[in-house]
């Protein structure tokens, strides 16, 4: 029997039971499709985050408050209040950092005339835009004297500017936060989102004003700084400075006992890698389970098919088909089924990946990139062939082992 005959015989058999063949491969289609979709989204997210990290530079260091209790879980910069502007001063004096900026965040209703809008409020300083580049559309940025003088001034995002002032020039206008009046000094260009926060809806005010007048705290949420020299050495050296400044009893230098947490962009990159790894393992398990279930479905239907076609098999043997030829015929049928399933799964997965990517770009994150993992497609083809072989071999053996006389008499 020639290869082409194997192929035509198998596809003719499958076409005779079209709807059953399609239903049979549904499990494989969904399994492969889901894996492609999730890989696409996972790799898209990874690339998105890494792009943002790369934009900011690998030498950025973050200092956040921590509980100092190793048993209390990950630090929450919105609850702990152990990092203050004194630490900013300490960082400036240490000579380890070139640019330093402290940040405090909250969400409050902001009022302009009749318009009342819940807005993300960011307390910050004049250095912020050096670390997280952004351009002003109108006016000026916050300056040192604003921060030192607890000034009631604000730099607002492009979207919030449009909400409050429409086409009018916002510079010099007043906005109300907690019944205090702030003067708009600048408007940012459209920036999109960073780390999943929409910067265009944000309002920035001096961090000192934010601490004293808006939130009534002494702490900051985090400090960002650019390290001079080797980032890891800077981090370690600074940790010891901080332990000293905070009077911590931590001679062995265990970071989990500190009441602060120092990290860098490197850590973020590493984290993305770890998350990516976990995601891959998770996806592989889901894929394995769905392909197992799909494969069992294929095996089941192939067994039914062998039973239904007992007489056909007997006839084929009577006209000269060998054990191997019958075996191959049924194996080719199951592999064709799973390959077709894999192909439809890839098509479906890629289509939905594009749709999801398009929705993300259109409505959520404009600088998302759609990633179609090419190796996943190759893998889908290989895996579906293997599933067809593994789950097809038992029914095919059953078919090939039929005794021609019994098979011909089968009713």
């Amino acid at each position, binding site marked *: *029997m*020639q290869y082409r*005959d194997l192929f035509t*015989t198998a596809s*003719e058999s499958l076409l*005779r039971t079209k709807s059953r063949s399609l239903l049979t491969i549904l499990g494989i289609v969904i399994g492969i499709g889901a894996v492609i979709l999730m890989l696409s989204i996972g790799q898209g997210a990874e690339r998105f985050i890494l792009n943002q990290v790369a934009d900011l530079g690998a030498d950025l260091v973050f200092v956040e408050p921590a509980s100092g209790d190793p048993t209390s879980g990950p630090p929450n910069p919105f609850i702990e209040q152990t990092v203050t502007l004194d630490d900013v001063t300490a960082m400036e004096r240490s000579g380890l950092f070139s640019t330093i900026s402290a940040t405090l965040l909250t969400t409050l209703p902001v009022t302009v005339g009749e318009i009342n809008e819940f807005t993300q409020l960011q307390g910050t300083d004049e250095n912020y835009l050096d670390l997280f580049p952004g351009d002003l559309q109108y006016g000026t940025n916050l300056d040192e004297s604003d921060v030192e003088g607890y000034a009631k001034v604000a730099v607002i995002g492009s979207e919030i500017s449009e909400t409050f002032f429409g086409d009018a020039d916002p510079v010099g206008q007043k906005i109300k936060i907690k019944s205090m009046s702030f003067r708009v000094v600048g408007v940012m260009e459209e920036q999109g989102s960073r780390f999943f926060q929409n910067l265009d809806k944000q309002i920035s005010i001096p961090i000192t004003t934010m601490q004293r007048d808006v939130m009534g705290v002494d702490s900051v949420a985090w400090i960002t700084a650019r390290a001079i020299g080797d980032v890891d050495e800077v981090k370690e050296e600074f940790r010891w400075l901080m332990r000293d400044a905070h009077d911590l009893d931590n001679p062995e230098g265990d970071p989990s006992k500190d009441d602060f947490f120092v990290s860098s962009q490197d850590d973020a990159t590493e984290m993305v890698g770890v998350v990516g790894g976990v995601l891959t393992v998770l996806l592989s398990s889901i894929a394995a389970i769905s392909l197992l279930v799909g494969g069992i479905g294929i095996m089941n239907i192939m067994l039914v098919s062998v039973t239904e076609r007992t*007489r*056909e098999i*007997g*006839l*084929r*043997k*009577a*006209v*000269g*088909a*060998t*054990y*191997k*030829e019958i075996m191959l015929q049924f194996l080719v049928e199951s592999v064709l089924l799973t390959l077709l399933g894999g192909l439809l799964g890839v098509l479906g997965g890629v289509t939905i990946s594009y749709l999801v990517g398009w929705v993300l770009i259109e409505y959520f994150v404009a600088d998302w990139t759609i990633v179609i993992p090419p190796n996943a497609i190759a893998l889908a083809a290989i895996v579906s062939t293997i599933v067809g072989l593994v789950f097809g071999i038992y029914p095919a053996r059953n078919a090939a082992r039929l005794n*021609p*006389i019994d098979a*011909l008499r089968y009713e």
Partner: protein
Amino acid sequence: MNLFSLKEVSRDYLNGEVVTSALRGVSVEVKKGEFLAIMGPSGSGKSTLMHILGFLDSHTGGTYLFDGRDVAGMTDDELAKLRQDQVGFVFQAFNLLSKSTVAQNVMLPLVYGGLTVKERHTRADNAISAVGMEHRRNHYSNQLSGGEKQRVAIARALVNNPSVIFADEPTGNLDTKTGTQILDLLAELHDEGHTIVMVTHEEEAAEYASRILKLRDGKMESDTQNVNRRRGGYKK
């Protein structure tokens, strides 16, 4: 040279501890060009004999030489090769693939032969013409009448140009008139030089053959030449 040469051929089945004998020492010589009818009541072993002759079953005792070659000890693949090249089968229940066309059914044995597609079509067309079914070439076999189905089955048996055609109760599922036509067709093929072995329990059918074997309880009861071969009169 004898096409079939059987000496004391027996076939025992083992069912658990019980041994059943379908054939108990059958000896017979069949030459090329004979039209052999194998008769006998149910359980006489006539089907078993035909299956052994056609390489679908193997004997458990005695010797069976096909065209001078000992069949015992052949591998499954060698037997498959013999079925492919040397024999064609016609069954009582036709055994056509119902969702395939006449031409596809007739070509089925050639799929395992390694011929080019063009050659397969030529051979299939010749076989279809030989049984007078050209007008149904592209019909699906489930659209055919019983007689037509059996003609297609005969075409399928002819297509690989076998040394012998086996017909297992070929008229069993047909009415008298169509049955007669099928028997006439077999007789015609015999006249053209084909060797035919037909299993039947109908006297009228056996009368078409040139030689009649009668089996009873797995043994040969009689072996007679049939000089007054019957012809139904159709087509003549």
